[in-house]
């Protein structure tokens, strides 16, 4: 064993592959421990309320290293902000909250949103919004009656856009003499609320959406991409590993059984393999995904089923035909080993050196198969996977609109996984099959 490890260290590709796999395993463990399964699903599928405060299609934060000016999201809450309450008489109170923030960036924000929360029995409060720029100008934005959980997106208000003569998130922050430049400084949003009931409350939250958010950025639904990128690792590894184990082991056993029993068993296995070669695997998987279930476990089962009688049988068969005639098998028979014992204890272990490199190289093909299905829109409906991120990005035209991070992050992770396992597999192949090493 230690000799084997020492030999492995002579191959730089094996070392690189192993370190990539190690990193992936660490990531998987971290993902599963830090964000438990249920929490990950909630954060990925929980509904809009969870990610309302995230910007849409924001770039990952590490991109600020290259573009230090990418604005980050600023959230100002009315709790803790200066608040003035005046009694106007007749049971009406006027509440004025000043939500102030410093805007230090040269680039405009991605959008502006005001979140209002109120409690009222009959008459909901009325709110007026005023914008104060650093140079002292005051702009009336809008006034409206507040529903219990009101979300007012300045950027999506067509009337405001028309009044300002441009996108609000640009005009409201633009410098008066150069409309394409940001006027940096301290901005204030005055939220003036009129409460008609004694028990009513009003709280406000201003969100200045940035263009960079989280370690991985966000997608079109404002979801943080860190979740699927982290959780994609354990899912990809589990799928690849299980599929590879399931299909290679069963193929091996079937090839050995066929060779050992010979005659019609062998013939039947060969014919089934030929039929299986003609069965179009990917279209069948697509059909299963469309008609029955998109659950990753069902797909995994079908992948293994289709892989049992894979082309590997021919390779193993050639090998076992030699092993069957080996003297030590005859010796085993002589001392009375039964059929199954001969197959499992004497024949199959001989194929392990051929099996292990193949097995390792097979893993990425299954990882990519899962991604392929996801890209076709047949990914698991619940699980956050790399393939699903690529699908979202692709179907939302990320490449056309320049959101390259959205495609590149999952793609690079997939690529790393693929390269890691294949490099290790190739090195193992050379170690286990010395004939390759000479040349």
């Amino acid at each position, binding site marked *: 064993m230690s000799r084997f490890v020492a030999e492995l260290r002579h191959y730089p*590709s094996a070392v690189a*592959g192993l370190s990539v796999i190690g990193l992936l395993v660490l990531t998987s463990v971290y993902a599963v421990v830090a964000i438990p399964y249920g929490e990950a699903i909630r954060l990925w599928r929980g509904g809009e309320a969870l990610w309302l405060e995230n910007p849409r299609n924001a770039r990952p934060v590490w991109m600020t290293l290259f573009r230090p000016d990418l604005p980050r999201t600023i959230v100002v809450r009315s709790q803790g902000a200066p608040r003035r309450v005046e009694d106007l008489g007749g049971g009406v109170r006027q509440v004025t909250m000043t939500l102030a923030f410093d805007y230090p960036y040269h680039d405009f924000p991605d959008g502006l949103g005001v979140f209002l929360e109120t409690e009222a029995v009959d008459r909901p409060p009325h709110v007026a919004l005023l914008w104060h720029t650093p140079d002292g100008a005051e702009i009336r934005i809008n006034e409206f009656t507040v529903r219990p959980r009101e979300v007012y997106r300045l950027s999506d208000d067509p009337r405001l856009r028309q009044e300002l003569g441009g996108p609000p998130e640009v005009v409201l922050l633009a410098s008066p003499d150069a409309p394409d430049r940001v006027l940096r400084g301290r901005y204030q949003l005055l939220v003036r609320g009129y409460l008609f009931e004694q028990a009513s409350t009003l709280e406000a939250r201003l969100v200045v959406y940035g263009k960079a958010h989280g370690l991985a950025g966000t997608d079109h639904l404002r979801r943080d991409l860190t979740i699927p990128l982290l959780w994609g690792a354990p899912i990809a590894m589990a799928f690849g590993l299980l599929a590879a184990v399931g299909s290679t082991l069963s193929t091996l056993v079937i090839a050995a059984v066929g060779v050992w029993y010979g005659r019609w068993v062998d013939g039947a296995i060969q*014919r089934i393999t*030929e*039929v299986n*070669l*003609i*069965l*179009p*695997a*990917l*279209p*069948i998987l*697509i*059909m*299963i*995904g*469309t*008609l*029955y279930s998109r659950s990753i476990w069902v797909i995994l089962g079908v992948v293994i089923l289709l892989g049992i009688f894979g*082309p590997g049988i021919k390779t193993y068969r050639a090998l076992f035909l030699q092993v069957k005639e080996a003297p030590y098998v005859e010796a085993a028979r002589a001392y009375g080993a039964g059929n199954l014992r001969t197959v499992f204890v004497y024949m199959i272990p001989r194929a392990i050196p051929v099996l292990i490199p193949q097995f390792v*190289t097979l893993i*990425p*093909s299954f990882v*990519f198969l899962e*991604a*392929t299905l996801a*890209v*076709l*829109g*047949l990914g698991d409906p619940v699980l956050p996977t790399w393939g699903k991120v*690529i699908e979202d990005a*692709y179907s939302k035209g990320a*490449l*056309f609109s*320049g959101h*390259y991070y959205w*495609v*590149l992050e999952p*793609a690079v992770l*997939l*690529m790393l996984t*693929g*390269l890691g*396992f*294949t*490099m290790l597999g*190739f090195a193992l192949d050379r170690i286990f099959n010395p*004939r*390759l090493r000479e*040349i």
Partner: protein
Amino acid sequence: MAEALPLVTPRRARPAVETLLRVVTYSATRLVALFLTVVVGVYLTILVANMGGYVDVIKRTEIREQVGISVSFDPAMQRLPAEERQKRIEELVKIEEERLGLDRPFLMRTVVYLREALRLRLGFAERMTSDTGSRLVRNIILDRLPPTLLLFVSAQLLLFFASVFAALALSRRYGSPLDRAVIALAPTSAPPAWFYGIFLILIFAALLRVLPFGGMVDAPPPEGALRYAASVLRHMVLPMTALFLTTIFLSVYSWRTFFLIFSSEDYVEVAKAKGLTSRAIERRYILRPTLPTIVTSFALSLIGAWTGAIVLETVFNWPGLGRALFQAIGLYDTPVIVGATIIYAYLLAVTVFVLDILYALIDPRVKVGLEGQR
């Protein structure tokens, strides 16, 4: 086979006729075997498609809808009282279901589907139409097949010749930096073609804007055959590069290893000792004995390409069979999905068959005689 042999003259004077006859009998047996394989494969496909009874459900709703429409347009029916009309509808539905064989047991029906599928009577699409507006699944598939063939056959041919010749060149000077670079790059073949496609689109279409994002020709299509062809070629560059990148290093690597194993054989050493040129050695002593393996792997790569096409075509918006299948998934158009799957099964079978014939032509063991092989 046995009765075919006495026809051959025992003298060795006419080996060509003898060989031809053997090749023909061999091909005929393989054809029968393959046909049976296709039948089983297509039947399995139908079972998968029909296992949950989805095809039946679709057919039944279709019948009900059609009967409903015909009844509502029939003035004689409209005068009938409601429950009388309902009874009449049920009767018509029952007749139609019997006509289509839906009242028969499941296994018998799958046999009917099998017969229809094998004769390529693939039925009507539910939502998709062909370019000419036809709803026949066969027409939809026939529309989409040529672009797929154009893209994949040219890519595979290019790939095949490039990798075999590059491998020959490398095997001549193994151990060189170039050789080691190819070995180091071999793991890049793990990702599928669409994966490289995304990167290529990003670089050449989105960032550099030198090549189109996808599609097969410019819109509107240019006038004149030459300019049309040029436009198609321009659109083929990126998908072909993607296909090329995903296999080239691995196949050069494995061919090179393969040739190296063969060039260490004793008879090659003898040929070298005789002073033959390296070209002659390659042609006669390395390429000749490895030809069956080379052809096999070419055909196998074609097989892989048929099904790998689905996502690549989708990513590049290539109007081929793969993208038709993808669209059919999106529309839940089951007849098209099943039809495309059957076509894929046929394509695979045809490839395997062509491979077998080629094998019979080039493999000396098949030529020597069938009885020797037994």
